[in-house]
Each structure stands twice: as structure tokens, then as C-alpha cells.
């Protein structure tokens, strides 16, 4: 992206970008808005029948007036049926955009899936979400895939009663041939399922009459009402206090097993991940830097960014003067470097890190990392350049997390 030296765009440059954006967005929108799309265009086959969702080289971009933001830039991972996949990373790393892409809820027309596939397993059929037209998407949302948002305080419509809001989703997807009373009965059951006492009374209330924890329970009831195969939980506990947080997480885990759904858990809280996830995906600046099973990530973290994340958490029973923090800041999303995105903040850089973005290295069948340190030819150099202190704090924090989580279970 062309940029002026002082960091600001000239008016002419900005106009050129927005004109270009309009053209690009127009093309994508035209494609999106087509009517009567042939089924073959969006039906696909899963690469593995045991996966609920497969993200395959997903690219989701935002065409802003300051330039193209590559929020998700080539992300691939699988969500196996009945498992929980934790996606972790700092704000703006693309974890929410990944999940919104799966729902086709990117802020259009600026946000577009420009490349890659998202395959959704619906038993007999598999959908490629990237190509699925609007009408079909409406049927999938809230039905096959549902989402729990991070802001229970504002995610419910303030002017409608709780019962009506839950009714709506049931009516949309499972309401055929049902009377209002039958739907309401199902709503009450859904509310009871998430542990709301006096569900009949709560159904008549407005959102502002409920506490944050209650509202999040309502959101979960709404998300689970139609027995989805995939539940996206986008920082479901961020806005809640710690005791409620634990309750909500337990509830999610319990309900997931009950309906055999998969959970995509998005969070920046490693404690939550340790407690909930079977698989972990670590994202940084729109790309996956490391992925693997929870054991692999917590007992053998490999990528320097993962180590940094782990090290910046307080550890139970250990007193420190100052918590570790990863130095530097995330590169400008409009102007990403052409080498490893984490290089400038990395404390364990090698000579070769100046080169192009590192490829994926398999440490085991499931454990994948994108870092030059694990290339066969750089292993020796890597062994010399180790920040022992960072490694020590990180592994202690990670083990602590995992042990606490095991205790909880």
C-alpha cells in the first residue's frame, strides 16, 4: 500500500483508494446478491467426515479508505465434531473476523471473504460458506451455526420481551406447523435448560430487568434453541465477573455434550482456553502462528508469540514485581511487513527471520507452528538464541493454567 512518509495519506491517495475499493466491493456485492444460485456452486464435500467445520486458506479483507486490511490472511484449521477449539490471540488479530466469516456476518460491503473455503458439515450436505447465497445463509444461521456474543448487556434487543426474542429463533427454524403456545413451551424449556429459575416469569421480562449473567444465559438459550452443530462463543465471559464466568463455562461445556455440538471458543484468556479447549489455535495479525491440541500448546508451546502470551499471565502462588509483556506493538494492518509479522517484537529472532514469512512446520501430527526456529537447517542457531527467562516463566504459567484447569474439571 502506498503511504506517505509522515504516516498520513494524501487526499488524492485516499480518493484513489476509495474509488478502487468501490470497484472491488461492487464486484463482490454483485456476486453476493445473485438470485437462484445453483446448488453446485456452494455445496462441497468435507475433507474429513469427522469435522464439523473446516477453514481452508481463508482470506477475509476489509476495504477501508486507508487501504486494504487483511484481517484474516490465509487461515486453515479444523473444528472436529463434538470438540472445542479455542482461538486465542490479542485484540485485532482476526479471531473474531474468522468466526464472523463463518456466519457471513462481516460488515459488508467493506468486509469480504476474498479467497479460501469454509466447509460446514451438515450431515448429508456440506456447504462452502464462502460461496453460500444470502437466503441459504439465513437458514443456516441460528440453526446449524449459532453465535454467542461477548456483550450480553447490549446483544439483546431492549424493546422486546425475552420470551419473544427466543420465540423468534425457534419460529424461524423449527416453527413449521407449530402454534404460538408450542413455540413458547419450547422457549421455556430452552430457558430452563440454561439454568434460569422461573423461566415463565423471565420470558415476560425485558432485557434491562436481568443481570449480565442472566442475559448471557438467555443468549446461550437462544443460540442452543435449535440444536446447532457448531456454536461460536465470541469471548462469552469477558463482560462477566469471575464466579458467573465459571458458571457460564460449565454450562456451555455441559450443553455442548448434551447436543453433541462443536464449540469455537474465541478468547484472549488462556485460563478459559485451558479449561475448555481440546484444540488451540493461536492467531497473530491475521495468521495462525501455532496450532495443536491443548496439551501440546500448554505443555510444549513452540512459537515465541505463544510463549510471550503465556508469560504475560500472572501465576497462582508466584510473586513478581512486574508482569512480563511482549515488547513493541502489532504492525500496522494496512502495511504488513513482508517478513514474519512477529519478527519486530520477537525476543528470540534468528538471522533468517529477515526472509519471507515462514511456512508451517509440523512438530507432530497435530502440532503446527510457523517459525524459522523449527526449520531443520536453523535448529542449531535457534538453540543458541534462547531467552531462558521467558521460556521459564512461560512454561510455568502454561503448566499452572493447565493444572488449575484439570483441578476444576
Amino acid at each position, binding site marked *: 500500500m502506498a503511504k506517505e512518509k509522515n504516516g498520513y495519506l494524501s487526499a488524492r491517495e485516499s480518493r484513489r483508494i476509495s474509488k478502487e475499493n468501490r470497484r472491488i466491493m461492487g464486484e463482490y456485492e454483485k456476486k453476493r446478491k445473485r438470485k437462484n444460485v445453483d446448488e453446485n456452486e456452494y455445496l462441497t464435500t468435507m475433507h474429513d467426515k469427522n469435522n464439523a467445520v473446516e477453514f481452508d486458506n481463508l482470506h477475509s479483507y476489509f476495504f477501508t479508505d486507508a487501504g486494504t486490511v487483511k484481517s484474516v490472511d490465509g487461515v486453515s484449521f479444523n473444528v472436529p465434531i463434538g470438540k472445542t477449539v479455542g482461538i486465542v490471540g490479542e485484540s485485532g488479530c482476526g479471531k473474531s473476523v474468522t468466526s464472523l466469516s463463518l456466519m457471513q456476518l462481516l460488515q459488508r460491503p467493506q468486509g469480504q471473504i476474498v479467497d479460501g473455503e469454509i466447509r460446514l458439515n451438515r450431515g448429508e450436505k456440506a456447504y462452502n460458506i464462502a460461496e453460500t447465497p444470502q437466503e441459504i445463509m*439465513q437458514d443456516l444461521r441460528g440453526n446449524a451455526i449459532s453465535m454467542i456474543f461477548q456483550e450480553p448487556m447490549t446483544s*439483546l*434487543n*431492549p424493546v422486546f420481551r425475552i420470551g419473544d426474542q427466543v420465540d423468534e429463533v425457534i419460529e*424461524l427454524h423449527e416453527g413449521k406447523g407449530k402454534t404460538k403456545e408450542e413455540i413458547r413451551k419450547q422457549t421455556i424449556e430452552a430457558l430452563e435448560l440454561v439454568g434460569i429459575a422461573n423461566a415463565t416469569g423471565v420470558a415476560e421480562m425485558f432485557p434491562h430487568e436481568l443481570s449480565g449473567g442472566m442475559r448471557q444465559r438467555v443468549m446461550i438459550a437462544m443460540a442452543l434453541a435449535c440444536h446447532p452443530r457448531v456454536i461460536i462463543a465470541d469471548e462469552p465471559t469477558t463482560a462477566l465477573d469471575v464466579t458467573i464466568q465459571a458458571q457460564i463455562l460449565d454450562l456451555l461445556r455441559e450443553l455442548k455434550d448434551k447436543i453433541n455440538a462443536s464449540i469455537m471458543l474465541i478468547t484472549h484468556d488462556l485460563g478459559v482456553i485451558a479449561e475448555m479447549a481440546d484444540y488451540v489455535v493461536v492467531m497473530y495479525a491475521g495468521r495462525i502462528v501455532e496450532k495443536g491440541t491443548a496439551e501440546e500448546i500448554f505443555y510444549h508451546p513452540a512459537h515465541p508469540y505463544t510463549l510471550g502470551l503465556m508469560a504475560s499471565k500472572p501465576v497462582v502462588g508466584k510473586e513478581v514485581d512486574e508482569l512480563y509483556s511482549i515488547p513493541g506493538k502489532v504492525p500496522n494492518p494496512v502495511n504488513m511487513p513482508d517478513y514474519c509479522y512477529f519478527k519486530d517484537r520477537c525476543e528470540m529472532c534468528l538471522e533468517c527471520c529477515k526472509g519471507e514469512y515462514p511456512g508451517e512446520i509440523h512438530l507432530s501430527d497435530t502440532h503446527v507452528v510457523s517459525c524459522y526456529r523449527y526449520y531443520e537447517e536453523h535448529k542449531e542457531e535457534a538453540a543458541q538464541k534462547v531467552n531462558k527467562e521467558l521460556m521459564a516463566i512461560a512454561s510455568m504459567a502454561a503448566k499452572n493454567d493447565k493444572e488449575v484447569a484439570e483441578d476444576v474439571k
Partner: protein
Amino acid sequence: MTKYITKRILLAIVSIWIITLITFFTMNAIPGGPFNKEKATSAAVIATLEARYNLDKPLGEQYVLYMTNLLHGDWGISLHSGRDIWTDIWSRFQVSAKLGGRAAAVAIVIGIVLGSIAALTRNKLPDRLIVFFTTLGTAMPSFVLATLLLLVFCLKLSLIPVWSSSDPNYILPVIALSVYPMAYITRLTKTSMLDALNQDYVRTARAKGVSKVKVIFVHALRNALIPVITYVGPMVAYILTGSMVVENIFTIGGLGSVFVTSINNRDYPVIMAVTIFLAILMVIANLLTDIVYKLVDPRIKLD
């Protein structure tokens, strides 16, 4: 709810009383009197007339007298025409209300529809056209618009007949009266609609699989209307009582023109009556607004 309404009515009575006080003393402070005509009238005649209408008494006493009569349901008679004020005001109000009611309905319906369209087509052609015309609508004074309409459609094109009380043609006056509030409602609706569409609950609705149309007209619009209601209540009261400018230009004998002529004539009881009438309407409109507000937004507590 009843308690709240009772409280509001009591408060309203107090504010109307204060309005009578202020109006009574300021209008008497204006130089001139009801019997000062261009043609000189002899001092003796004026004195007799003033004595007859109690205008020779001290102001305080006049006020007490006026209020006592008013509380007995007597609005007095016009010093100018000698007719009963209440019958006059009531019949004139019906003329204004018929016109104003139509104008208010047009303004609200078209305003909300245009505002929603503008919000949904943001920065595209329909939005830009709507923004242009609403800016024009809010900027153009009603007397310019009314005169223009008369000139073009009645005189030059002879498409629409000039207003007559026996066969009223509402089109032009309704346009002249409704353009400003319509433009204002359009802009209000657009802003609050854009705001509502960006709210988390709209995203939730879409995540539930609700269709786009339903998201807009069920989930967003109801929330978007909350600020619009605040404006619409007093606007309706204002428009019902008639615009002096528009009524004068179209020579419609409504309440607005009564107000102007009564002030010009220093017709004290008429000025008082029209002011109080307007105040009562305003108070009712505000109370209704608050109640509608509560019905639309359950978060609002009236007490």
C-alpha cells in the same frame, strides 16, 4: 401510572397559571390599547368603553377578574368583534386542526419512510438526493415556500384552485406546512436508524437468521423511533394550532391568523384565550409523548 399522570396534570395546571400571568402582564405592557384606532376617538368614548370592559381598573384587579371568569368557564367576548371568544376559537381551531392533522400525518409517514431509505442506502444516490432535499426543506422559510407554491401552481399553471373555506383544497397548504417537519423527521430517523443498525442486538438478530427486511423494520426501526417520538409530540401540537404564516398566505381562517390579528388589535381577552388554548394543547401533547415513549421503550420509567 395513574399517580404519574395525576402528578403531571397538577404540574401542568401550575405551568399554565404561570403562562397566564406572564402573558397578561406583558401584553398590557405593550403600548397602545384595543380602542386606539388610526382615526382619533374622543377621550370620553374611550373612557366609557374602557369602563365597560373593566379596563380602567388596576391591572392586578383586572387579572383577578379575568381569572375568576375563566374558572367559571367564561372566556369573555372579543373587544374587537364583540363575539363570544370560545365559539370563535373552537370553530377556527377545527379549520386549523383539519389542515394540521393532514400535514402532521404526511410529515410523519413520509419522514420515517424517507429516513429509513436514506439510512439503508447510505452514501448512495437515493440517500444523497434525500439529504439534499431535506437540507433544502429545513433551510427554506415557510413563507418563501408557500408563496412559491401559490405562484407556480395556482397562478402560472392553474393546476390547483386557490383556497376557499367552502371548498377547501388541502394540497398546497399541507405541502407548505409539512415540508419542514418532514425534512426534520427524515434526518432524525436517518441518524437514529444508522445508529440502531450498528447496535449489537441487530447483529444478534442477523445471527439468529432473521431476514434483512425483518431486521430493519422489526428490530431496528422500533429502537430508531424513540428519538423521533420526542420531536413528533410537540410538533403535532404546534402544527394543529396552525401556522400564522401559512394561514395568512393561503388566507385560511384558522387559529394562527386569529392569534396575529388579536395581537395587532390588542384584543386582550382573545390573546389570553389563544395563548391558554395553545398551552393546554402543548401540555397534552407532551404528556402523550411521554406515555407513548414508555410504550415503545420499556426501559423508561415514568416516575
